[in-house]
């Protein structure tokens, strides 16, 4: 197994999005595993008894996420920039800022996140259509939590 071949394998994993490649050859077993955050180049080389060349490629990483993607509407996620309580409207009796199907422009207020007695207005950064509201009114939310899906247009 030379360095060039190893580089090729790592590249293949990166480019095709497969999750794992395992190769046994000439008494050497190499496993290259991809990370959600990028290929980790975690190469485990373990000597094994000499065996014929065999390769097994798993494409399991995407099956779970494609399922999820099918259930979730298309578009970009709006994620919480702070920690607090999520409110869909300016007050309990008011109409929500946005609903599914609404067209929005950059700067439009999508929701309020209350933190430390302050009401923070969260504004849209893209123009498009709201395709999903992911959090219930008055729920606690954490940093980076997905709140809305906007289909850009």
């Amino acid at each position, binding site marked *: 197994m030379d360095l060039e071949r190893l580089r090729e394998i790592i590249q293949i994993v990166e480019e095709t999005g497969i999750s794992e490649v395992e190769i046994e050859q000439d008494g050497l077993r190499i496993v290259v595993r991809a990370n959600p955050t990028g290929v980790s180049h975690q190469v485990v080389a373990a000597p094994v008894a000499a065996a014929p060349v065999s390769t097994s490629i798993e494409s399991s990483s995407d099956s779970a996420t494609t399922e999820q993607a099918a259930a979730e509407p298309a578009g970009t996620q709006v994620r919480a920039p702070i920690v607090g309580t999520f409110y869909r409207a300016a007050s309990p009796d008011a109409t929500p800022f946005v609903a599914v199907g609404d067209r929005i422009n950059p700067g439009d207020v999508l929701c309020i996140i209350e933190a430390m007695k302050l009401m923070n207005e969260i504004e849209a950064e893209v123009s498009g259509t709201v395709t999903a509201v992911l959090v219930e009114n008055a729920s606690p939310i954490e*940093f*980076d939590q997905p709140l809305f899906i906007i289909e850009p247009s």
Partner: protein
Amino acid sequence: MIQKVLIANRGEIALRIIRTCHEMGLKTVAVFSTADRDSLHVRFADEAVCIGPPPGRDSYLRPDRIIAAAEVTGAQAIHPGYGFLAENADFSAICEDHDIKFIGPAPSTIRMMGDKSFAKNTMRNAGVPVVPGSDDVVKSGPIGKRVALETGFPVIIKASAGGGGRGMRIAWTEDEFESQYAVAKAEAESAFGNGDLYVEKFITGPRHIEIQVLGDGKGSVIHFGERECSIQRRHQKLIEESPSPVVDEALRAKMGAAAIAGAEAVNYEGAGTVEFLLDDQQNFYFMEMNTRIQVEHPVTEEVTDCDLVEYQIRVAMGESVKERDIPIEGHAIECRINAEDPFRNFSPSPGTVSTFHPSGGHGVRVDTHVYAGYQIPPYYDSMIAKLIAKGRTRDLAIRKMLRALDEFVIEGVKTTIPFHLQLLADEKFQAGSFDTGFLDTFELKPPEE
């Protein structure tokens, strides 16, 4: 009433605090940055709230996000751990403003002890010995010399704006004071753009000895004996032990009384540590006070059979501290295991820990947040485990530690375990004869191929 505690920290100390909370029947909330999503403290806590991206300044150092997390989860108290916001007086005050109990001292106490010269004066007024010298900057060579004569030689001439060992000169006798003063001034001006100097007694053969205290904020303070922390590399502690091989009962009583006097003078609430320098004549001098739980608290816990985190929480709940002597039994040593390569000048070794099998057995304690498959984030410090060994005597504790270091398996990253093995086997270390300069001359043997 405190029923739910938010831990404003990460890593091994967050786990440590969560463990005691669960033993006490308290609910726990972990906060984490996106880099710590798979961290053990997140898994073990009852609830967890993501508070920001990886950098500390955008997450663990954000009082607003931490308070918001306490609000949405209904936590009544926040334990700050060590580092991050643990000694941030403003954070202690913000908690107060939001009716959240900060598990630690009052904001004013943190502020007072954080100001080094204020702390020194407070201690001096409480009758605690402090390092003699100029209280402030010396305006000229002749004035400096006068201070030096009053203090007694040798003295150290230090840059006020200094650090990293620069702008410091030792004058062993009166004759060389003026020239050393001039050199120090020139160095300080060039390194820090500020030639201000002060003069202090130079402690020969200094050992770093610290006393663990606990106060209830109602006037009662007790101490738990000392920790010997002289094994330091660039002012970072690597090995700590309790008791110190050079502190006998009489000295312990004196240092303990001094630490208590200092803590009582500021009506201290919570766990704290009073640091002293001990010279080779058994004289001790106040250095500074840390108003938090410390990394090396386990060695005190092992020889006093106390849970210091539990005491912190109980004091925060309003319990009074009963004044009493705490008996010390046996000897405990702690090795801080870092993801660093000791043979490459301790350069950090980030990456994924592929195998992790901690030591165990009689007298061995491991405080760690690491597990097999864990990816060490590059954003925080490199400590991956604290290995603590306790024996009936110091020799037995050393033997146990050597055995425990030998069987600790960590693969995938380089660690300082080989360094600790050499250090624990060193003659001088085993004899207990070392001071804070020990590691400057310690020679690490290269790894066997």
